[in-house]
């Protein structure tokens, strides 16, 4: 099933960022890190359209494409960031993506070429 074009065009990238944010939000809740929770909440309000996330999430989420060990590895990398505000979080995530792409650590999600980290965050969304 393909994504309606208008939706993918308008929201794809912001939604990926949104997915990342919400995923990290959940992670940070588990980690009970209040500062990070606040940052992520702000980030969600700034960037996310929940309707679109839900809609695209259904299309993008493909569990089991990354091994559990690899997933844990990626999650610990996300947690290890030293971000103290929304901009730093965004910057930190972009750095991770850049590193992924530099080493061709990519995964196909519904024909999209996404970094492994982006994909892991999509998987987190499934459990939400």
């Amino acid at each position, binding site marked *: 099933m393909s994504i309606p074009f208008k939706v993918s*065009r308008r929201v794809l*990238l912001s939604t990926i960022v949104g997915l990342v944010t919400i995923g990290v939000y959940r992670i940070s809740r588990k980690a009970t890190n209040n500062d990070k929770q606040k940052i992520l909440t702000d980030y969600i309000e700034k960037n996310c359209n929940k309707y679109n996330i839900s809609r695209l999430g259904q299309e993008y989420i493909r569990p089991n494409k990354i091994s559990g060990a690899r997933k844990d590895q990626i999650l610990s990398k996300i947690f290890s960031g030293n971000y103290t505000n929304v901009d730093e979080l965004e910057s930190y995530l972009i750095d991770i993506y850049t590193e992924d792409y*530099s080493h*061709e650590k990519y995964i196909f999600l*519904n024909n*999209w*070429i996404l970094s492994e980290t982006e994909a892991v965050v999509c998987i987190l969304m499934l459990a939400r």
Partner: protein
Amino acid sequence: MVIDFDKFDSDDDLNCNLCIIGAGAAGITLAREFNNTKINVILVESGGIEYDHQIQMLYDGETYITEGSIRRKAYYNSLMGWRLRFFGGTTNHWSGGCKPFRDIDFEKRSWISNSGWPINAADLEKYYRRAEKVIQLSSSVYSDELWHHLNIAPLEFDKDKIESWFEQRSGFLKEAGNPNSWRDITGKSIGSLKFGKEYRDELFDSKNIKVLLHANAVDLITNNDINHVNLLKISNLSRVRESKIIADTFVLCAGGFENPRILLNSGNRDNGGIANNNGLVGKYYLGHPLAEFGTLVTRDQEQADKLGHDFSMHKALEKNLVDPHLRFSNACLNNNKMLNIGIWLRVKSDKNSGIYSAIEIYKQLILNKTLPNNLTKNMINVLKDIDDVIVQSFRNASDDPSSSYTTSRFVIPTEQSIRIWGIVEQAPISDSKVHLSTNQDELGLNKIIVDWKLNGQEKQTMRRALIILGNEFGRLNIGRVKIDDWLLEDDNLLGPLSDTGIGSHPAGTTRMSTTSVSGVVDVNCRSHFIDNLYISGSSIFPTNSYVSPTHTIVALSIKLADHIKRNLVHKSQT
């Protein structure tokens, strides 16, 4: 001088030193090299100086595509649509794209069977420079150096993987009124340099060159040993006038389909014609698979606008438009075992435009003979843009051959995503071939059947290219790439390649090789078996890169001219 063979009133044979068959890019270039020399040349052209549909019909034939185990007729008769049979040949409607082949295009590559030329890029270098004058390019620069001329900051791709490169478009500014970019001339007549128009006066006024119009090559007559051509039989379309041309040297310059066709139709057709002792004439046919195969969604509007602008055509040099695109480094092609491939970035066509809808209806209703999907929606779109549809339809239905290229150019920059479009080299395989049909044309010559086959490496290359590109766009935080569904399907299923690859830039059908075991002509473009028969044009390419062939065709013709000059002078001295 020029002779219209339709009105030729003599029973005498025609004599010359050099007989060139075909007045397209190869033939005209070759003939011009002999202007004002002591060598008498006859340039034989089937058509006149204008398009004539009856003559064009001599190109008719059948085209088949094999997908997996299924062989089917091609939807589009590319034999009629891509080529032009009158003075100037297909340069009467080519897109003007010029760029030399690169080192790796000539090399034997272990992952591509039957690859490797018996010459290398350095052998052609000086001829490429001379060719630039013929095709009227104002510079020899094709590299990313041109971005600086354009005052554009180039994308910072990993140069071990991707590099941006440029095609120069021959003649556009001269023909199209000095436009600033491709978009300014979208939908208008293609403004590429037309060899027939450009060099007509020079050849028609020449003292040592006779241009013979409306004269068709019907049979190359050899000696009994079939190792020397004695004469060429020619005929006009009505077959009322027939004659013979006796020459020291004959050169076939009739194009990727007609060169093998003339050889297969000459001498004993049932025995494979002439110059075909090893049965290789017509085999290893190469087309240029081309298609849109992915989408880049940029991170924001600004990125889309920038890419749309940067990767459109620009006026960069004195006389030419330049067309930026992406290619892969030699190391990347090697490491990934890829064919050579070029990538163009284009703003997305508006699927709600009348033109797009009209083409969709045409493709499904006329070509596929099925009831179109979304017929109502498409009809509404057509009615909404009816003025534009009428203008474009008229242009394409008219006999103006220069307009027939424009249907693929309806690019309307409304959507802010970038379509990724590519041309890939075809892997040479002997099963992809041109052979004779039992059907005959007006001249009694057997028509051709083109059997086009790919071995799957083309799709694999496109897929790999898109993955590399997707990772680079991600790394640079420009956007994300989505691969079209068809590219992820079975490698035997051609998807949109089947509509476009056959017939485009036909090559390989009389390939160049060191020995007669693997090709038809030698390093000097001479038949391995016939001592005074040469071939020029894309039919001698053993592999075809992704690059438009004309620049290389012209360079090879100049190289051949130098060789023939030396040879004829040597003969006259001995």
